[in-house]
């Protein structure tokens, strides 16, 4: 089973993470400071890192860069709500996902599983992504909803494909815009809003309460796979 490195200075948080993660069958390595975390990262070779952004000895953002300097291990960041720029920066620096504190353990487990799944499938990008009644065939560039093909414009398809290719993974506005519209349009969120809305109209059961393309306010969007509970 996978080894997970938890870097957090709060013993209480480390304790409940250890209990829950161990209960789910993961091996847990703990570090109290960023320095110790970086050492453990090199020595224990974890499959996933859970990193608190607020560490006493080093800025969490720099810790991300430091880990990324030597390793491609998935990183899930623990951050405070309402600090959206922190989340975006963490994602830009190479973090894979974030969970806002305080959080429920179910939410964290879903992120952990998604990140590990992504890692196991490295190399080959997925060719078929299925979420409920919607199926995105990335190889054939076809989208099915309840078995029927949905007609999408070229941009709509590219947007959906970008999100689905990294399903269960938050993508920042800038990332999506760069991938779909090109580097000149990284700030044109209006494009994104309009196209997301159109996609939801075509794919969601209730476009007002989207279940497939989920908004992460202030950060970006996430293509959500149904939870495997």
């Amino acid at each position, binding site marked *: 089973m996978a080894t997970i490195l938890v870097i957090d200075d709060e013993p209480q948080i480390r304790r409940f993470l250890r209990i829950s993660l161990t209960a789910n069958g993961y091996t847990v390595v703990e570090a109290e400071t960023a320095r110790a975390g970086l050492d453990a990262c090199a020595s224990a070779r974890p499959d996933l890192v859970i990193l608190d952004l607020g560490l006493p000895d080093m800025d969490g953002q720099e810790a991300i860069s430091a880990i990324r300097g030597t390793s491609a291990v998935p990183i899930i960041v623990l951050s405070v709500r309402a600090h959206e720029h922190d989340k975006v920066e963490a994602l830009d620096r190479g973090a894979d996902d974030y969970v806002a504190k305080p959080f429920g353990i179910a939410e964290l487990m879903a992120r952990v599983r998604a990140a590990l799944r992504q890692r196991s499938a490295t190399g080959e990008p997925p060719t078929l992504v299925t979420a409920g009644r919607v199926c995105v065939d990335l190889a054939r560039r076809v989208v099915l909803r309840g078995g029927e093909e949905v007609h999408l414009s070229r941009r709509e398809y590219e947007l959906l494909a970008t999100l689905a290719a990294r399903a269960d993974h938050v993508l920042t506005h800038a990332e999506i815009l760069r991938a779909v519209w090109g580097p000149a349009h990284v700030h044109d969120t209006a494009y994104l809003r309009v196209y997301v809305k159109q996609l939801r109209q075509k794919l969601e059961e209730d476009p007002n309460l989207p279940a497939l393309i989920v908004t992460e*306010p202030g950060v970006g969007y996430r293509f959500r796979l149904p939870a495997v509970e």
Partner: protein
Amino acid sequence: MPHDDPNARPSPDALLEEANRERRGRHTIFLGAAPGVGKTFAMLEGAQARRREGVDLVVGVVETHGRVETAALLEGLERVPLRTVSYRGKAFEEMDLDAVLARRPRLVLVDELAHTNIPGSRHVKRWQDVEEILDAGIDVSSTLNVQHLESLNDVVERIAGIRVRETLPDSVLQKADEIELIDLPPQELIRRLADGKVYVPEQARRALDRFFSPGTLTALREMALRQAAERVDSQMLRYMRSHAIAGPWPTRERILVCIGHGPEAARLVRTAKRAAERRDAPWVALHVETHRSTSRREADKDAIAAALRLAEQLGGETAVVQGERVVDEILAFARGRNVSQIVVGRAGARRWTRGFLRSATADLLARAGRFDVLVVAAGDEAATAPATTEAMAWPAARDWPAYALATLIVAAATAFGALIDRWLPLPNVSVVYLVGVLLVAIRSGLAPSIYASVLSFLAFNFLFTEPRYTLAINDPQNILTVAFFLIAAVITSNLAARVRAQVEVARVSARRTANLYDFNRRVAAAASLDDVLWAVVHHVAASVDGRSLVLMPEEGRLVVKAGYPPEDTLDEKSMAAAQWAWDHGSPAGRGSTTLPAADWFFLPMRTGHGPVGVLGVQIRSGQPLLSPEQGRLIDTLASQAAVAVERTSLVGDIQKARLDAETERLRAALLSSLSHDLRTPLVSILGAATSLYTYDETLKPAQRLDLVQTIQDEAERLNRFVQNLLDMTRISSGALRPKADWVDLADVVGAAAERARRILRRHRLRLDLEPGLPLLRADPVLLEQVFFNLIDNACKYSPKDTTVTVWARRQDGRVVAEVCDRGRGIPEADRERVFDMFYRVQGGDGQAAGTGLGLAISRAIVEAHGGTIEARSGLHDAGTCIVIALPAEPPPTLPD
């Protein structure tokens, strides 16, 4: 000074005076009638006695004049070294005021109170140094000869034949706490003089015989005795007042002194001051400004201004009124001010008009009615000095163009007269001359027009009346014509010149009124302190045709706050004068008696609540002094400016007080909210957790789940509350700056609903969002917070299993969203107040606890986006709808 208080209560003025007296040092003056009576000796003897008692005393300055006995008395006394001042290449020694102040003894001995300091010293006179020492709370013993008193100055001159130049205000003697009269019989003094025991300055030796004659000394001695006796009276009076001893008080009298032009004015003032003092009455110096005032010689104007200033210095009040009939004005003023005695000079009329025109004094005497009139004899000065200067001044050199013009106009009139003489009768020619005279009068005033009249008369007589080319006239009719011409010409001149002068006076007065009006208007319009100060300096500079500054204290020292033309710094001398004016609350600098070497004149700006700053004025170079007119104007402006400055700070104070009260209210509300909203969830969590721990075995799985659920719910509630507090802090600290981005409202509402999923599990959520809503320019995170708060509130205040609805539609160019519940609703009266921080509608106990912050945060966010938020009653008056309207921006243009 005196205040008739009919009630048996200590008069407030008297008490105040007592209080000030306590804080100040005590001043003992050793008063003598003449040099040589032994004042310094007596002072030193007293000092030796005090020293033996152990009093900490120093000698500030004592002049022994080489007398051995005096020098011997200095033995054993600590002397503050004198300061050496060099002036025009010579070294002089003066008392070191700063060293004395720094030494801070109990008592300082200062000889020769009336001494004039060397230029470059801080004060012009030594008595001012003494005032400063007294203000510092240090006692002073000093010596004074009676002839140095300002009000006795000219009496002494008349008796002794010596003009005493070193004078000091009577108020110094009046304010002294104790007077020791050093008396020596005249014969004894003359003997001492003969023995060479009296020091006499070289320049006074010539007058020695006259001064030290038994007659003079007796008169001076009487004056000194009277001064001391009056002192006793006034001390008694003061005691009675401050101890509320019932009368008989002296009846209130008021003395009015009329100041005309002429050199006797100063003497009139002194006479009035003495008369007032004898009766312990207040007094007023009055000058009546007529149309002639403007055309007066500068020397005369200066004399009047000087007399008015002297009156102020001697403690009198001054007034200037405008009017043509001097006597009427005086009587009206006297009646209005309840005057009992009027003091006038005798030289009211010029010598050449005596017997022809009645003098103003004679007129006043005739009409005085119930007023006592004291007529003061013309002094020598009136007969000699001014007559010569007048003779020399007439016609003043600067007037010659006016006379040249008058001559020219008469010549022109003559030419024109010659032209019409052939066709028209003689009287018409005289009219031509009359027109000429009128022109001169209007242009140049009285004297040139009289000159023109006479010239015209001569020319007319010589050229036009038969026999021509002589000054003789044959025809009686012509004699009449010529005579009438002359009379008409003089009257015309007079009238025209008077009109001209009145226009001039009116113009000056109107300018002054307009100036004050303009100032008030500008200052009233200024809201901030900077605006007020700018208006003040600009206005003052314009009014005196010079430069002006305002200095105010900042962190314990005076700094230039505004200047016109803009100025940031002052040279050291001027700064010292400004500081002095601020510290002592009296004028300083150029044109005053304190630090006159400074380039600026400084006037303290004060209100009833105390000083607020210092106003600096600098008149254009070449004019070192302010005229009394300007002085009064600046005085008025300074006090009005002070009031305006105070007004701005009062406005600030009120706003601050209001803010403080609001902050206090919020602090109290926050505390109560914290104690309630933080503790309630903690109680539940702790209770549930301990239950699980303690009764682990006995609990059924459903109960266990229930307790766990409680912990989770309450922890989440706690989290929301903390989040709200953090948001509120961000909003109050001004950190709430929406990061505008293009936002889809459906997206935002969806995210909020997603986050509120657990809260919503006991309610139904219905989203009714109009399709095709435009994108909004908004901060998605903040807007999501608004909808989350509103959905949270809706669930909190409505029963289980009811529906919470979110509507959104486009309306009048705005996007309007509503979050509606089916709860009990908000009473009409509370619908505005629910948006206040920590405000909660009073409800039953069963109501879910709110933080009282959610709506306040929502409102702050919505308003930061330029939107509005309000509470309304729901459909069919059931429940509550919170309605948000946000501006819809023109949609972005999209390619594709």
